[in-house]
């Protein structure tokens, strides 16, 4: 009874929409003023918050400026210094390493999602557990992992000592491992996000396709690699772009956990930019580095999109 009423109301509103709404809609969309009205607020916000600051930071990069006093125009000097700055390229290398690890970790998330999506017991609960890190703020995650990594009283080293390792590493103090020690919480932080995306994509695959494969005698592994994976290829390529771009401009955990230290061993491009602009009071140079970061990110995105582009559209 209830269900019937629901359909009725739905049908009614649809028919009203068809009779009057669509005509009105067409009218609205043919009037340029109306189009402008709809677009203007968003366009204005995006320009004020994104495009204008972008252009400004490129412009500030041409200045010798401490962020407070007068600006002096120095042409491309900041950009040339940036390209020759070994510290900048060290930080760029660290950012690229993070991008590589983020991309590789997508394979793990994908595997987890395939398992979660294949009707195992407790999948629902597990999915929620994987999402928890996403709900925490970066600063909270950083504080949590600072405690985990504490060389004397942290849970990790306490465990290592209890299994007989006498001198466990000083995770955040050793320049040789600090970068990787920070990668782990970063990957952990975003696991839930990617698992959620993959899970949704996998759930979209029609059951009939998988049923057909099963009847034809495909093993679960074959179904995963031959049926499911090709069908969510587009989603995978989007997540690769997301992971790489996100890594290149990554900032928060690193800033809170090590501030790029010790002596730059965990510096990434964004934290180096911040340090220049706000600690060294070198706003002009910091802006130039920020602009270089933008250019690098755009080039990499273009390349990745080209490589992962899929021509055929998948329709079920």
């Amino acid at each position, binding site marked *: 009874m209830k269900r019937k009423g629901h359909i009725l109301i739905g049908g009614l509103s649809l028919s009203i929409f068809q009779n009057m709404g669509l005509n009105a809609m067409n009218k609205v969309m043919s009037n340029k003023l109306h189009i402008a009205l709809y677009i*203007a607020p968003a366009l204005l916000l995006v320009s004020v918050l994104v495009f204008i600051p972008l252009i400004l930071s490129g412009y500030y990069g041409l200045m010798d400026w401490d962020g407070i006093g007068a600006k002096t125009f120095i042409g491309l000097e900041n950009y040339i210094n940036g390209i020759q700055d070994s510290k900048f390229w060290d930080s760029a290398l660290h950012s690229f390493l993070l991008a590589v690890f983020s991309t590789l970790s997508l394979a793990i998330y994908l595997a987890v999602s395939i398992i979660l999506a294949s009707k195992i017991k407790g999948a629902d609960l597990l999915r929620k557990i994987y999402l928890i890190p996403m709900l925490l703020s970066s600063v909270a995650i950083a504080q949590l992992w600072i405690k985990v990594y504490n*060389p004397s009283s942290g849970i990790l080293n306490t465990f290592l000592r209890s299994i007989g390792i006498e001198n466990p590493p000083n995770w955040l103090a050793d320049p040789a491992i600090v970068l990787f020690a920070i990668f782990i919480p970063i990957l952990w932080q975003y696991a839930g996000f990617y698992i959620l995306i993959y899970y949704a994509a996998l759930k979209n695959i029609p059951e009939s396709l998988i049923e057909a494969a099963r009847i034809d005698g495909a093993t679960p592994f074959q179904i995963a690699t031959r049926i499911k994976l090709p069908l969510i290829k587009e989603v995978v390529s989007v997540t690769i772009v997301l992971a790489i771009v996100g890594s290149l401009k990554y900032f928060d955990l690193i800033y809170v956990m090590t501030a790029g230290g010790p002596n730059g061993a965990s510096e990434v491009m964004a934290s180096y930019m911040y340090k220049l602009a706000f600690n*060294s009071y070198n706003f002009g140079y910091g802006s130039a580095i920020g602009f270089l970061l933008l250019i690098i990110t755009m080039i990499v995105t273009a390349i990745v999109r080209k490589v992962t582009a899929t021509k055929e559209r998948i329709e079920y």
Partner: protein
Amino acid sequence: MGGKKTLTVLSSALAASLLLTACSGSGSEDASSASGETEVKFMHLWPEGSSKKHYDVVNEIIADFEAENEGVTIDLEVLSNEQYKDKLRVLSTSGDLPDVGMTWAAGFLEPYVGGNMFAPLDDVIEEELSDAFVPGTAEAYALDGTTYGLPLELNIVSLYYNNAMFEEYGLEAPETYEELLEVVDAFNEEGVQPIALGNRDAWTGSLWYMYLADRLGGADTLNKAIDRSGSFEDPALVEAAAKVQELVDRDAFVNGFNGLADEEAKSMFMSEQAPMYLIATWDLPNYTTNESVPQEFRDSVDYMNFPTVDGEGDTQSFVGGPGVGLFVAEESEVKEEAKDFAAYFVKAWGEQAVEKAGVIPATKVDAASLDLPQMYIDILDELNNASNITLFADVQMSPDTAQVHLDSIQALFGNEMTPEEFAKAHEDALSKE
């Protein structure tokens, strides 16, 4: 064609309305001065949540000032430390600084003074505060002979130690560097990490380097190296860097100190995991009056002046310096009132700060007339007998060089740099200025 035109008109109208709303906020604030009331805007960085005692003293002083000066009201804005720094910078670019605000000494001042944002305060000091400050404190706010800040705090660095832990292992507080090494070895043999150090912040390690440099090279060597009349390649300064690495090699500092923040090191000291901790007097309340720290711990903490090194050095020479001070904005429309308020504040703060907030003010304090914990009285005594106070190196240096200094300190402590490379990194950075 018509559509395009409307689009332009529309978007410019929207932009204009946005601009209007943005302006109206600042426009209304100046209105109060018309009604005979003078409003002095004051911004400070002691929020009620994290610095309750400071916050209360400030409010009392403001209330007293307003009562004594009919027609002048103080418009207060309070932010926490880092937010304060950010906001000050943003306000300065729009020429909108508060009439009175807080600043740090030396390097921090430079860009603001260079941009003509802070008013010279020599007249205020001459008229109202002559001979009020501990020598060397107001000078830290001077550039080219003109003073731009009135210091509120003074901190000196001492080596705090846990007497109970020393007694437990039958050890005595070291008076020389050699004895310090022995104590370090003794604690290490007992499996106790000797010295709490959070060198992720790097200024903490800088304190160790500065003291070693002071003991080995005398009060002036480091200052001269920074102001370019000397050099970081001075044998005493290279030797100081070598001593730092000797301490590191003896495992004097807690595990992984380069990855620990000062807060974490502090909590190791305060939870009796490490018996020694080099820190400034801003931590004194934790060892004396702070009720949330166990009484037993507070009773067991004592301090010593930094030991002599190789039989050299004056233990009455300190590393330290003023913390925050007051500035008056050059562009202020109520500059006279602002200056009066700043002078009033400094005087009142000097009278109340130690007793009520546990802060050692930069103005001279008559310890005998106050009811203070013994450790405060002792430290104030040390201050009166101080032969020299060397300002924190990262504060002395320009922000650019300070960053190089801090990075190099981490590298030196992490054995990534030799003392010679450490000296050279400083020389390179300073010669670029």
